[in-house]
């Protein structure tokens, strides 16, 4: 499948915080329908990398192409349009606290996409139904459990019809009992063919679905490859060490 044009291509993305280089020349390209999973120790640059990909954090260097078109960061309007095509799921959900579940999903459809309120409402209800939360649509975030909040945030991202989704440790802030309901939703979205880049410590779940693992440490991509290779036959000792620890902790599906 070498002739496929990658849906997203990132070249040499670099980010400094003060004199600390938190992301070093990270390059990655992903084809339509693929799932790439970022693994690595906390503070290794996974979040920064994901946030640089949709420019929530401004990379100091690096280029990025979506569908073969380069996104020029200086053009604000282009960034706003680009971000609509890139769904983002945060570790701590970040639902809009003053809006009900329904309005959380609806607001960007109306205010950003310019949809009519009725049409946006129908779409929002459809997406909430898809994540199994239609009956909770009138609840405020403060009235939802962590797992429910994360499912609403997935519905909110899906309603925008993104071409790719970035998931930044979507289950890390959840009670163990709530993790599976979120993973089930992610699995559903994945089986509908959504392209995704996800950082996670849920190594078992990730290895069952990912096309490729990307091991990041100290801001550098150390190694990439299919899950079974990274987990069991990694080239670098550091990758092997991390993977053996994390499989011990979170289990695996092989």
């Amino acid at each position, binding site marked *: 499948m070498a002739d496929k044009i990658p849906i997203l291509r990132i070249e040499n993305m670099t980010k400094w915080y003060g004199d600390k280089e938190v992301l070093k020349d990270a390059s990655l390209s992903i084809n339509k329908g693929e799932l790439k999973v970022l693994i690595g120790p906390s503070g290794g640059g996974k979040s920064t990398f994901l*946030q640089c990909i*949709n420019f929530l954090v401004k990379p100091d260097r690096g280029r990025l192409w979506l569908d073969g078109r380069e996104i020029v960061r200086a053009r604000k309007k282009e960034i706003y349009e680009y971000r609509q095509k890139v769904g983002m799921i945060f570790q701590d959900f970040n639902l*809009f606290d003053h809006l009900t579940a329904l309005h959380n999903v609806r607001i960007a459809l109306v205010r950003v996409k310019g949809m009519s309120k009725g049409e946006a409402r129908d779409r929002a209800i459809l997406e909430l139904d898809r994540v199994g939360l239609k009956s909770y649509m009138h609840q405020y*975030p403060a*009235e939802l459990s962590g797992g429910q909040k994360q499912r609403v945030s997935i519905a909110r991202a899906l309603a925008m019809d993104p071409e790719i989704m970035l998931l930044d440790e979507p289950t890390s802030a959840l009670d163990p009992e709530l993790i599976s309901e979120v993973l089930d939703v992610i699995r559903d979205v994945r089986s509908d063919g959504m392209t995704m880049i996800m950082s996670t410590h849920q190594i078992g779940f990730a290895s069952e679905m990912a096309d490729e693992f990307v091991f990041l440490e100290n801001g550098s991509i150390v190694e990439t490859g299919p899950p079974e290779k990274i987990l069991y036959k990694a080239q670098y000792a550091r990758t092997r060490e991390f993977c053996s620890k994390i499989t011990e902790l979170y289990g695996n599906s092989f």
Partner: protein
Amino acid sequence: MEEFFFLQPEVVSALVKGFYVSVKLIVPSAIFGFIIGVVVGALMVYGNAFAMAIASGYVLIFRGFPLVVQLFIWYFGLPYIGIYLSPFVAAVLGFSLCSGAYQSEYVRGAFLSVKTGQTMAAQALGFSKIKMVLFITLPQAFRRALPGCGNEIIYLIKYSSLAYMITCIELTGEGKIIASDSFRYTETFMVIGAIYLLMTSVAAWLLHRLEYRLQLPGFEQYS
């Protein structure tokens, strides 16, 4: 019953007239002050360096100059450059700008209290900065700013009494005339004070009702 002379019809009608003038000063000043506060507060948090400098300069000057001095400048100073304001307009202008400077600090604090995750989520969905402020952070900040902004409105009700210094005869001004005509300073100003107390009590009650109505799960102010 000579002590109750000031309940005579002309005294009552003077006080009622003064009361109306006060209300006519306070209501627009509170509204303009609040609007200025929101705009300036938002600029101080979300504006570029230039907008921030302008906003901070405004707050510095209008919080730093005594209000009476500001009123004197608007009413007695502007005619030197050919601008003539009526006492009423000069008072509303002075009150609005002064109140706005104070309000902006409450609003700024409220904007800063909105979690960064909220703005990140909005940006990730493609919101422009101005839409993000209007639809995401302002509705949250507004709820958090209300107690502080209400405090400023209560304060405004009382400093509206300075309007008589530039010949806009409101409640205190009428009181001063009655008192100096009758030499009944204590009685007159006790009544005037009680009327201000009534106004601030009504304002406090209305503000509490507003806070209550805007209460949402996660934004409780009362337990």
